[in-house]
């Protein structure tokens, strides 16, 4: 009875010994992802921003406009047609003219599309507009 209990205990201890390196590595991976990664934001359309060498960090607490490569536009999390978008943005800017706005546009989208959104923003009086880009190492 006593012997079998001790055998059981040593068997458990040896399992622990073998599993320790695994836990160490899993913990290291966990800490790596915690520190190095940032939680991905949910984007209503798939967007791959243009590469740029600008240094300024992207702000996250801003009203976000997404422009997909096929021209679809989303304000925040809702996809909108162009006319509805113009109205929604005018209403949002009128409610708070100083709020920062960022445009997350795909690199393949036509610049003219983005410019027409900028003109809409200009017409509604917003002055804090940023275009989101993706970091590219300077050559």
């Amino acid at each position, binding site marked *: 009875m006593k012997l079998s209990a001790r055998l059981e205990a040593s068997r*458990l201890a040896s399992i622990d010994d073998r599993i320790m390196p695994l836990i160490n590595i899993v913990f290291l991976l966990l800490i790596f992802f*915690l520190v190095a990664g*940032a939680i991905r934001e949910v984007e209503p359309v798939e967007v791959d921003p243009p*590469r740029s060498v600008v240094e300024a960090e992207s702000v996250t607490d801003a009203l976000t406009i997404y422009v997909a490569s096929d021209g679809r536009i989303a304000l925040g999390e809702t996809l909108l047609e162009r006319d509805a978008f113009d109205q929604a943005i005018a209403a949002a800017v009128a409610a708070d003219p100083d709020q920062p706005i960022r445009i997350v546009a795909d690199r393949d989208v*036509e610049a003219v599309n*983005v410019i027409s959104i900028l003109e809409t923003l200009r017409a509604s009086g917003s002055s804090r507009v940023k275009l989101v*880009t993706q970091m590219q190492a300077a050559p």
Partner: protein
Amino acid sequence: MKFAQRTSRSSGTRIGLTPLIDVVFILLLFFMLTSTFADRRSLDMATPAPSSVTDLDDKIIALELTTEGLHFDGRPLRLDEIDAVLHARLATGDPVSLTVAAGIGLETCVTVMDALKASGARSIALKGPEGMH
């Protein structure tokens, strides 16, 4: 005697490692799937009020970006010439207006803006082709 006591106490307070490993694995999976390493930056876009632009007309550095390339004063301008040609004027803080023709991708436009910023441009306003709406 002492030894026997110690072993019996430690086996009494043993905490199983398996639930801990389960939780750590789930956390690891969560962070692996949700984290992103894309380094997002942002570029200031000038949206000047239309009224403030007219009285600056002679100071504005007007550039045109068409499918044939970048033009300044009607002459073609290569990206690596921007610094040589425009540095002195950009240093005075004159605003830049970049007129972009239809058919230009956003990335090309951002590359030109990068080059202008690198030469010291402070405010770059984008303009669409005439009669865009």
